[in-house]
């Protein structure tokens, strides 16, 4: 029996949905971001502040997005930043970079370039020498995505 136009349309919509689903699961979700952050900080209390992520608010090319991470700390032997972690919300994996540093750094300011698959939030976590964790966020609008595009 030939399917009617209506049946055909319903069927093809289903195929469309099915092929869209694997793409959805290929990106991290805000829940995965929370989980990745929990894996790093454990049960510790996460406070907002001290860490700043400098990212352009709008980037044309998600393949190279300049990011500068600045943590407000005197970087002395008694009070310094032990580690910095950066996470994102919608790339295939939530983890971006983990940095270990100490009083030898002099200044907690790190710059790098990252890939972003979508318009999203990125979060930075700073672990201080006194065991406290601080977080900061930045939102980026990405017009050309990275990471998951196919090679033509």
């Amino acid at each position, binding site marked *: 029996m030939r399917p009617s136009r209506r049946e055909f349309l319903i069927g093809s919509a289903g195929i469309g949905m099915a092929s869209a689903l694997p793409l959805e699961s290929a990106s991290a979700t805000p829940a995965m971001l929370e989980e990745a952050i929990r894996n790093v900080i454990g049960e510790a209390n996460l406070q907002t502040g001290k860490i700043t992520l400098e990212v352009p608010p709008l980037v044309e090319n998600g393949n190279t997005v300049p990011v500068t991470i600045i943590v407000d700390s005197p970087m002395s032997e008694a009070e310094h930043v032990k580690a910095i972690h950066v996470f994102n919300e919608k790339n295939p994996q939530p983890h971006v970079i983990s940095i270990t540093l100490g009083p030898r750094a002099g200044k907690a300011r790190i710059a790098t370039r990252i890939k972003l698959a979508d318009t999203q939030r990125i979060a930075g976590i700073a672990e201080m020498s006194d065991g406290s964790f601080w977080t900061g966020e930045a939102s980026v609008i990405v017009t050309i995505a990275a990471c*998951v595009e196919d090679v033509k």
Partner: protein
Amino acid sequence: MARTLINVPTTAKRGDVIEIKTLISHPMESGYRVGTNGTMIPRDIIRQFVCTYNGEDVFRAELSPAIAANPFISFFTVATESGTITFEWRGDNGFAASETAPITVE
């Protein structure tokens, strides 16, 4: 050997906080892209970057596929004594590269 570009001041005053900029040529293939024949391109990234100052660790970074191709990392350190600053990158498929830069501290 991958091409690297390192920027370290050649001279510094003792106790100065100096900026170090590093760049290395590497595709940082994320492992999430589909190639021309429909198969996934396997992951090939640099996973670790370490900077040592006269043998002492001053900076360490664990990279993930979300770092852009040709990883650029810039950071700061205190110029404590004359000597060499060593940079090491390690990654998938046995990738390893290292570079040194001399520094004179007055």
